[in-house]
C-alpha cells in the first residue's frame, strides 16, 4: 500500500516540477527578449543558415552576388513567416519557449564545442559533466565532514573545540571562490606546488592513470576552497541540529528503555534528523550550482560556469540564455531527487 502512495507522490512531484520549470524558462525568455536579444540571434542565425544554403545550392551557386542576395532575402522572409517569427512578442515567446524546453537552444554566435559543434546544446552539455563532477564531490565531502564532526561535537558540546568552531563560524560567509583566490595565491603563485587552474596538465598525460591523477591534482584547490568555506558553519550547524534532536523526549525515553548509546544515536537521533539533513544537503547543492560560475572562472575549470564566463566575454547571447535554461533544469532535477529521497526517508510523506 505504501508503494502505491509513494509512486503517486513521485509522479505528482514530477509533474509539478515540470510545470514549474516551464514557467521558470518562460520568465527567462521574456526577460531575455525584452531587449530583443533572442529575436536578434534567432533571426541572425536563420539568415546565415539560409545564406549558406543558397550559396551551396547548385541552382543558385553561380548567380551574381546581388541576385543571390535577393533570393536569400526572399527565402528568409518566407522562413520567418513559416516559423511564425513575425508574430507579436507574446506569441513569439511561446515559440521560443517550446524550443527552450526541448533544449533546442540554437547555435552559438562565436563559440564552439570541443567536438566542433556550434549547437548551444552541445557546447553546454559537453561541459556539464565537469561541473557535476567537481561540485557533487565537494558537496559529498562536505556532507560527511559536517555530519561526523557535528555528531562528535554534539556529544562533547561546551568543550574547547566546540567553542573554537562556534567562534570561527563567521568565516563561512566568505564564499568558496574567494578562498580559492587565496589558495591559488599561496599554493600556485607563491609555493608553486599546485596548478593555477584548469582541468589537467598541459599537455595531458597519455597514460589514463596519470591522466586521472592529474585531474585529481587539479581538483584539490577548488575542492579545498569549498571545503574551507563551508566547514565551520556546517559543522556548527549539524552539531546544533543534533543537539536539538537529542533533547527530544523520545530520545530520553530511549535512554530510559536502557538502549545502548550507539543505538540511540543511530535510530533515535540520526534517523529522525535525516529529512531535514537531506533538505539542507539539497539546498546546499542547489546553492553550489550558483557559486559554480565564479569558482570555475577563478580556477579555469572547464565546466558550465566557465562556458558562462566565456559567453559573457564574447557576448554570445544564445549561449548565455542556454546556460540559464540548463541551470533551471539542473535545479529542477535536484529538487526532484531531493523530494524522492525525502519521501523514502520520512514516513509521514509516504502515507499521505
Amino acid at each position, binding site marked *: 500500500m505504501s508503494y502505491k502512495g509513494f509512486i503517486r507522490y513521485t509522479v505528482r512531484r514530477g509533474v509539478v516540477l515540470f510545470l514549474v520549470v516551464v514557467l521558470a524558462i518562460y520568465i527567462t525568455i521574456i526577460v531575455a527578449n525584452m531587449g530583443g536579444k533572442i529575436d536578434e540571434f534567432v533571426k541572425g542565425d536563420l539568415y546565415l543558415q539560409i545564406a549558406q544554403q543558397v550559396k551551396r545550392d547548385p541552382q543558385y551557386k553561380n548567380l551574381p552576388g546581388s541576385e543571390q542576395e535577393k533570393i536569400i532575402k526572399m527565402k528568409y522572409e518566407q522562413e520567418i513567416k513559416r516559423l511564425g517569427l513575425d508574430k507579436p512578442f507574446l506569441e513569439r515567446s511561446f515559440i521560443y519557449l517550446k524550443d527552450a524546453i526541448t533544449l533546442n537552444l540554437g547555435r552559438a554566435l562565436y563559440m564552439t564545442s570541443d567536438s566542433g559543434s556550434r549547437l548551444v546544446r552541445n557546447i553546454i552539455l559537453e561541459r556539464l559533466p565537469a561541473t557535476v563532477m567537481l561540485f557533487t564531490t565537494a558537496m559529498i565531502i562536505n556532507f560527511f565532514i559536517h555530519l561526523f564532526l557535528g555528531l562528535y561535537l554534539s556529544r562533547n558540546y561546551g568543550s574547547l573545540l566546540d567553542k573554537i568552531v562556534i567562534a570561527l563560524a563567521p568565516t563561512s560567509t566568505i564564499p568558496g571562490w574567494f578562498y580559492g583566490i587565496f589558495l591559488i595565491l599561496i599554493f600556485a603563485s607563491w609555493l608553486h606546488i599546485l596548478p593555477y587552474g584548469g582541468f589537467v596538465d598541459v599537455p595531458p598525460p597519455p597514460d589514463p592513470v596519470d591522466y586521472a591523477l592529474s585531474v585529481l591534482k587539479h581538483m584539490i584547490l577548488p575542492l579545498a576552497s569549498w571545503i574551507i568555506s563551508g566547514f565551520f558553519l556546517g559543522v556548527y550547524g549539524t552539531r546544533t541540529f543534533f543537539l536539538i534532536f537529542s533533547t527530544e523526549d523520545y530520545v530520553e525515553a530511549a535512554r*530510559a528503555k*536502557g538502549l545502548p548509546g550507539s*543505538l540511540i544515536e543511530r535510530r533515535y537521533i540520526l534517523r529522525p534528523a535525516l529529512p531535514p539533513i537531506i533538505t539542507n544537503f539539497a539546498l546546499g547543492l542547489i546553492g553550489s550550482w550558483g557559486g559554480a560560475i565564479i569558482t570555475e572562472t577563478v580556477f579555469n575549470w572547464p565546466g558550465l560556469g566557465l562556458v558562462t564566463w566565456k559567453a559573457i566575454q564574447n557576448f554570445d547571447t544564445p549561449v548565455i540564455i542556454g546556460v540559464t535554461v540548463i541551470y533551471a533544469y539542473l535545479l529542477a532535477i535536484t529538487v526532484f531527487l531531493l523530494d524522492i529521497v525525502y519521501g523514502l526517508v520520512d514516513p*509521514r510523506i509516504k502515507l499521505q
Partner: protein
Amino acid sequence: MVGVAMLEVENLRLYYATRKGVVKAVDRVSFDLERGETLAIVGESGCGKSSMAKALTRLLPRNVHTYDGVVRLDGKNLMELSEEEFRKNVRWSQISIVFQGAQNALNPVLKVGFQIAEPLMVHDGVPKEEALKKAREALRMVGVHESFADRYPFELSGGMRQRAVIAMALITNPKLVILDEPTSALDVITQANIMNLLKRIKMERNLSFIFITHDIALSSELADRVAVMYAGQIVELTDAEEFYTNPKHPYSQKLMASVPTLRTDKKLEFIPGAPPSLLAPPPGCRFHPRCDKAIPRCGEEEPPAIEVKEKHYVKCWLYA
C-alpha cells in the same frame, strides 16, 4: 520475604547546578514500596516529583550537582551499579517508566510495534519476529487493535499513543513501573479510560507502581500508599485510606481541603502564597511561611519524619 520491602529508598538526593545556584530538587527522600503496591506521589508543580522519577531511573541531565543516597531493589543497592550495569540490568528489565506527554515518547520515524518490541530485542535478545508478536499481544492487552503495530506514531490518537507507551513499559515484565503524570496531556474521558486500564493491569499483574501526579483525586483511584512532596521533600507518607480521610500534615490537609467532592457540600480552601524556590528553600520546615499552624520552632529547625501511627510518617513539629 517479609520485612524487606521490594524497593527501599533512603536519603535520595538529586541537586542540579544552575547559573543561579544549586537547585535541591530531591532533598533526602526516603520511602519503601512492597511488591504489588502502588505509591502515589502527589505535589504541586515544581515540588520535585519529576526529578524524583529521574533520580530513580538515573536519567540525569548534564548539570547534576549531587546524586547520592541508597536505592535498594530487592536488596541490591542500585546506586552502586555502573552506568553500563544499570543500563543492561535495571533499565526497563526491572524498572520502566511511562513519561508525561507520551506523545513525544515515541520515535516518529519508527513503527509503533517495533518500538514496543525493542526492549525485548535489546535486553532479552528475543528475535525480531517473536518480539513483534509479543508487542502485538501487549497492544491488545492495553486495548489497542494489533494492526496499529505496523503504524507510525503520528497515525495514532493521543490516547492510543499513551496506551502504546504503557504497553511498551510493561512488555519486559518489570518489577516497578513509574508513571509520571501519564494522563495530564489527555482529555478527561481518555484519562478515565487510561486509569481503568491501569487499574486492570494492577489487578492482573501484581506490579508495583509509582504514580506521580498533581491531581489528588486521580491518585486516589490507584494508590495503596500516598507520599506528599513539598519543596523536594516528602512531608507525609501513609496508607491511601488514612491519607484521604485523615491527613495529618498541614499541607496535606490544605490539599485535601482544596479538592472538590462530588456528593458532599464543601467549602473549598486554597493555600496562600507561592511554592518555594528549590534554590533557596525557607529555613526550618519548608512549609512554615504558608502554614497557619506554624509555631516558632518551625522556622528554626527542620522537623524529622515522625512516625505518628504505624507506617504513617509526618514531617511536622506539631507531632513531635
